[in-house]
C-alpha cells in the first residue's frame, strides 16, 4: 500500500496561504471600517437592503478587480495580474526530494462583449514555460452569484542543457475546458470555484538525436481551483488561490519522464497582484 498522507511541503504552503489571507482580510477591514450599526449575521435572513456604505453592500453590475472571478471585463478593457505559482511535487515522482521552484504567472484578459472575454496566461520558470490563450463566456445569475464557461489552449516547452546531465528538450499542447462559479461576498471580496478538465493533445520529446512523439488526444486529469480576490493594502487587489490537480502528466515535471499511468496529486499555491 502506498499512501503518503499530507505532504509537509503542502502544509507549509497552506500556512503561507492562510497568513496571506489573514493579511488580505486585514486590508479589507481597513477599506471598510466596522459599522457598529450593521446587522448581526443572524439577522441577515431577513434580507433587508444593506446601507450603501455597509461592508457587504454591493452595487449590482459593477465589475471589481479580479482574474478568476467569472465576470467579463468591460468590452475593450484589459485586466492584468502578475504573481507566482508554487507547485508541490508528488512523492511518487521525486521520492524523498521536494522540488518547489515558483513559476512566474502573468495573466491578461480583455472584454470583447458584455459576456464574452478572451484570456491569456504565461507561466515560466525560465527553463520551462507555458503560454495559453482562451475564450470565456460569463454571466451573472444574481447580484452576487456569477458563472462562466470557457476553453483554454496551452503550449508548454522546456529545454535542459546541463553538462553530463541533460541534453533534452520537449514541448506539448494541452487543452483546458473549464467552468467557474463565483460568489461576491462584499463589494470587494469575491470567491471563485473553478473546475478544469485537462486534455493532452500533443507531446514531443528529444534527447540527443532520439525523438518520441505522441499526437493522440487523451484525457489527462482534472483540476479544482479555489481563489479569493480582494484588497490587500492601499486598494491593491490580490488573488490568493489553491489549485488541486489530479493528472497523469504535469508539464512542469516533463524532465522527470514520469512513467506512472495513473493520476498524481499536484497541489498549487497561487498568488497574484492584480495590476
Amino acid at each position: 500500500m502506498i499512501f503518503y498522507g499530507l505532504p509537509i511541503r503542502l502544509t507549509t504552503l497552506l500556512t503561507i496561504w492562510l497568513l496571506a489571507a489573514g493579511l488580505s482580510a486585514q486590508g479589507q477591514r481597513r477599506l471598510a471600517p466596522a459599522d457598529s450599526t450593521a446587522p448581526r449575521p443572524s439577522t441577515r435572513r431577513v434580507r433587508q437592503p444593506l446601507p450603501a456604505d455597509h461592508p457587504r453592500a454591493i452595487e449590482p453590475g459593477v465589475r471589481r478587480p479580479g482574474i478568476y472571478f467569472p465576470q467579463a471585463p468591460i468590452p475593450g478593457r484589459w485586466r492584468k495580474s502578475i504573481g507566482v505559482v508554487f507547485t508541490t511535487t508528488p512523492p511518487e515522482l521525486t521520492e524523498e526530494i521536494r522540488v518547489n521552484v515558483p513559476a512566474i504567472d502573468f495573466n491578461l484578459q480583455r472584454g470583447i462583449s458584455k459576456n464574452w472575454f478572451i484570456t491569456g496566461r504565461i507561466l515560466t520558470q525560465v527553463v520551462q514555460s507555458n503560454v495559453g490563450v482562451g475564450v470565456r463566456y460569463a454571466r451573472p445569475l444574481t447580484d452576487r452569484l456569477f458563472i462562466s464557461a470557457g476553453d483554454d489552449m496551452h503550449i508548454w516547452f522546456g529545454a535542459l542543457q546541463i553538462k553530463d546531465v541533460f541534453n533534452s528538450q520537449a514541448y506539448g499542447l494541452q487543452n483546458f475546458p473549464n467552468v467557474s462559479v463565483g460568489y461576491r461576498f462584499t463589494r470587494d471580496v469575491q470567491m471563485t470555484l473553478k473546475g478544469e478538465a485537462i486534455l493532452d493533445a500533443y507531446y514531443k520529446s528529444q534527447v540527443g538525436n532520439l525523438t518520441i512523439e505522441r499526437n493522440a488526444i487523451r484525457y489527462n486529469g482534472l483540476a479544482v481551483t479555489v481563489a479569493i480576490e480582494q484588497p490587500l493594502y492601499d486598494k491593491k487587489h490580490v488573488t490568493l488561490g489553491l489549485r488541486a490537480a489530479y493528472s497523469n502528466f504535469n508539464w512542469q515535471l516533463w524532465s522527470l519522464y514520469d512513467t506512472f499511468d495513473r493520476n498524481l496529486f499536484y497541489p498549487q499555491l497561487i498568488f497574484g497582484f492584480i495590476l
Partner: protein
Amino acid sequence: MNTRYLVLVGLLVTLLMGCRKEYEAPVPYNFSNLTGSGKFSTAIRQSINGVYTVTDGSDKFGAQVVLRWTYTHTGADTSHHLSVFTSNVGYFDMEPQPQTGGLAVGGYWRRLQDTEIGLVQLTVNVRRSGAVSPFTGRLSTGDTLVVSGVYGDGDVTPTKRLTMTYARPLNARPFSVLAHRSGGRTSDLLPASENSVEIIKMASRLGATGIEIDVRYTKDGVPILYHDNTLNLRLIQKNGLAGPIEEYTYQQLNTLVRLVNGERIPTLEEALQTVVDNTDLSFVWLDTKYVRSMTQVQSIQRTYLQRAKAAGRSLQIVIGLPSDDAVSLYRDLPEKSNTPVLCELDTSITRSINANIWAPRWTLGDQTAEVNAMKAEGRTVFVWTLDEPQFIREFIDQTRFDGILSNYACVVAYYHYSQQ
C-alpha cells in the same frame, strides 16, 4: 475575510486530500516454488523461448510478446519460471503445473505502470498441418508452437482467451538488461521491495540479466542496501524511526525496520550471496551511496567474485562511481588492481581511472561519438536510468550501448529480445 470561509477552504482541501486513491496490486497467485522443471525438459524450454504473435488477448498485451524461461537455485535444486514480456510495460510470471497431463504453466500477469494484475493459465501446443494438439517435445518441419489458455483480471478465475503463436527465436545479440534497485521500484507495486533479497531472487523473472543495488553503511559500519538518504514511508513500514540510516546500528535496523513488503534490510554480503547462490544474474552494479573509505566494499567485492568463480559462475561485480566524491574514494584505495569499476562521469574521468565501464545518463541522448570512442578503447557502455518505453525502444534500435539500466527490465527485455 471571514474565518468561516477559511474553514470552508480548509475543508475543501481536506476533502480533496482524503479522496486520494490508495494503490496496491496484490499478487493473486501462490507459487508452489517446486524444484525441478517437471515435464519442461531443457530441450522443451529452449524450444519455447522466442518471440510470439498474439491473437486472442492482443488488445490487452499487444500484438507481440517475448517468452523466456529463467531459473532460481534453491540449494542443490532449481525452480523454473516462464516469463512473458509485453510491449505495454507488463510481464507474466508463471511456473510449471505438474498436476496437469500436458505442458502447462500457471501464474499471474501484471502491468507495472498501474495496478492491473490477474491470473493466467496456459498450455503449450503444436500446430501441425492446421491442427493444434498438445506439444510432446518433438517439433517437425512446419510445426509451430502455440501457447494458449486463459487470463483474468484480479483474483477472479480467468476466462478470457489468450493465444500466442511462435514467430521467431529471441534476438541473440549480447545485451545487458540491468534492473534498477535490485529489480525495480517499490512504488511500482512489485511483489517484493526494492533493494531486498526477495527482489534479487525475482529479478531475472522480471527480465533482468543483471542488477544495480544501492550501498550504504550503518552507524556501526555494516554495508547494507538502501536507496534513500533517510528512513521514510516510501521504503519502510511505519515504525516511528526516521532520519538518516547511517544513524542506526545494523542490529537496530535488523530488529526494528521492515521494508514495505515486510522484508529485512539486507547487508551487502547477504545480497551478493543471494546473487551467487540463487540466481543466474551475470552482473551486479554496486552504486556508491556513502562517503567513507571504499576498502570494505572492495574487500566484499573480491570475496564474492572469488565465490562466483569457484561456483563456475560468469559474474561481474563492479563498484559504481556516480560522483567526484566516489571517484576520490576510489583513487584513495591503496590497491586498485582487480577492482572493476563503473564510472558515471564524463569520458575523460573514465579514462583517467581506466574504468572498465562507462555509464552516462540517458537524458544526454545517443552520444554516438563518445560511445564509439569508449567501445573502441575496449570499454563497455551502459546508459541509466531509462524507464520511458518509447525511448527504451529508440536506444535499443538506434544506439550502440551494451546495456540499459531501468526500473522496467521487462520493457528492456521485450525490445531487446524482439529486435530483428
